[in-house]
């Protein structure tokens, strides 16, 4: 569970749960899916890790961000248990969404209780997904759309830091606004599995294919500049091994 360096290409998830067993489980699930994982056992520690300092007077102002911490560690997603002593997962969600620097980080809530009002409250507060415990590998597949979205945005940020082969360097200089080819970095494992219009990550692109894929990216991502996408893309229905309510941002739970 090392700290993610700013130049790491892997998707870094912060998992928050007061139960040791559940931490072990979620860590293993995420590692198996090739994400980088850090686990903490409380909401307070999660906020510390994210570089957030709370206001002592408890005012609803945006908490100040400690600049050093935030630059050292980059977190791409937070997955948290709902029921925790002290700061609940819901409180943590609120704090993250209230923070100007952190509100773009997708937050997933896990709970062992299937309480519809709880679920809708979390989704309304901005949670990306709500998982019922025990969490399974098939649940993580539901995260893929969010991760694909985040890794594209990550690519944009890290445009300058990449080592780019000569043959496409010109191309990228011309199209500086658009994303670099995903093939130039270590892609998370899920990129290969997730059904997408783009080509397979493993194939070494020729210059023509490169142009094509960049054009495809342009077409697919018309809201590149929006950090926070609206929940209007439907999730592809993944076969799950058991029926369970599928809660995403688009669902309205009564």
């Amino acid at each position, binding site marked *: 569970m090392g700290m993610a360096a700013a130049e790491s290409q892997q998707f870094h998830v912060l998992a928050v749960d007061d*139960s*040791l*067993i*559940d931490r*072990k*489980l979620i860590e*293993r*699930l995420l*590692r*198996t899916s090739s994400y980088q994982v850090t686990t903490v056992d409380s909401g307070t520690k999660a906020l510390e890790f994210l570089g957030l300092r709370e206001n002592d007077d408890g005012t609803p102002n945006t908490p100040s961000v400690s600049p050093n911490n935030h630059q050292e560690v980059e977190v791409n997603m937070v997955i948290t248990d709902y*029921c925790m002593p002290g700061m609940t997962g819901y409180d943590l969600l609120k704090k993250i969404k209230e923070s100007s620097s952190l509100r773009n980080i997708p937050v997933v809530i896990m709970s*062992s209780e299937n309480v519809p009002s709880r679920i809708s409250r979390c989704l309304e507060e901005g949670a990306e997904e709500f998982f019922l*415990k*025990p969490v*399974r*590998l098939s649940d993580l597949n539901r995260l893929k759309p969010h991760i694909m979205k985040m890794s594209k945005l990550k690519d944009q940020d890290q445009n300058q830091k990449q080592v780019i082969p000569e043959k496409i360097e010109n191309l990228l200089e011309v199209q500086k606004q658009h994303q670099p080819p995903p093939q130039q970095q270590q892609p998370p494992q899920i990129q290969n599995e997730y059904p997408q219009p783009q080509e397979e990550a493993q194939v070494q692109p020729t210059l023509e294919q490169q142009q094509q894929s960049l054009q495809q990216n342009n077409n697919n991502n018309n809201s590149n500049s929006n950090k926070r996408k609206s929940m209007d893309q439907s999730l592809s229905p993944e076969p799950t*091994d*058991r029926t369970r309510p599928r809660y995403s941002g688009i669902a309205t739970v009564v």
Partner: protein
Amino acid sequence: MGSGGRLTGNRLQGVVGGRRGCNGAEELARAGACEVTGEWKSRSPVKTGLPLWMLGLGADLLWADMNRLLAFLFHQGVLDEQFLQLQQLQDETSPNFVSEVVNIYFHESEKLLRNLRGLLMEREFSDYKKMGIHLNQLMGSSSSIGAKRVTNVCLAFRAATEHNNRPGCLRALEMLEHEYCYLKNKLHELFQIEQQRALAAGVRYPVQNN
């Protein structure tokens, strides 16, 4: 009669020796002493004097044993598909994942069970809320490893606490301790077979050292 039990060979059977019945706290105390060890019993239908695993046949038979035990536990509702998830998460990069998680579970659960019993045994007991907290923890971790029967008893126990029903809680606790002991014994059995199988497979397919 006489000295309690025989010492067969150089081994004393641990918890599993003797009767399989449970009487709650006593059994729990004995169960606490049981650890996953590397000991195994040799079996050989043919009197060659060699244990099966050395004959290279052990691995397959043990594999069948393990599956039989697993199937039994699933059929009895002791374990559910979440346990299979745990097994699926175990691989070369994390070869002891299941036993690691299960040992943590044992450690935590025994603490919680002791707390629960301690609370209920209090003369002036009234802290149902605190019991509920312990119960929720136990229920959560039991469900996370696929211990279905234990989880279900926790549910019934929780209902009793919500009704401030002390005798109901006591009954539920007894049942919980029983189910937990049974689960622990069975999982130990499972791990023992797994270890034997690994040994046997190692003999047949020597590990390439990098």
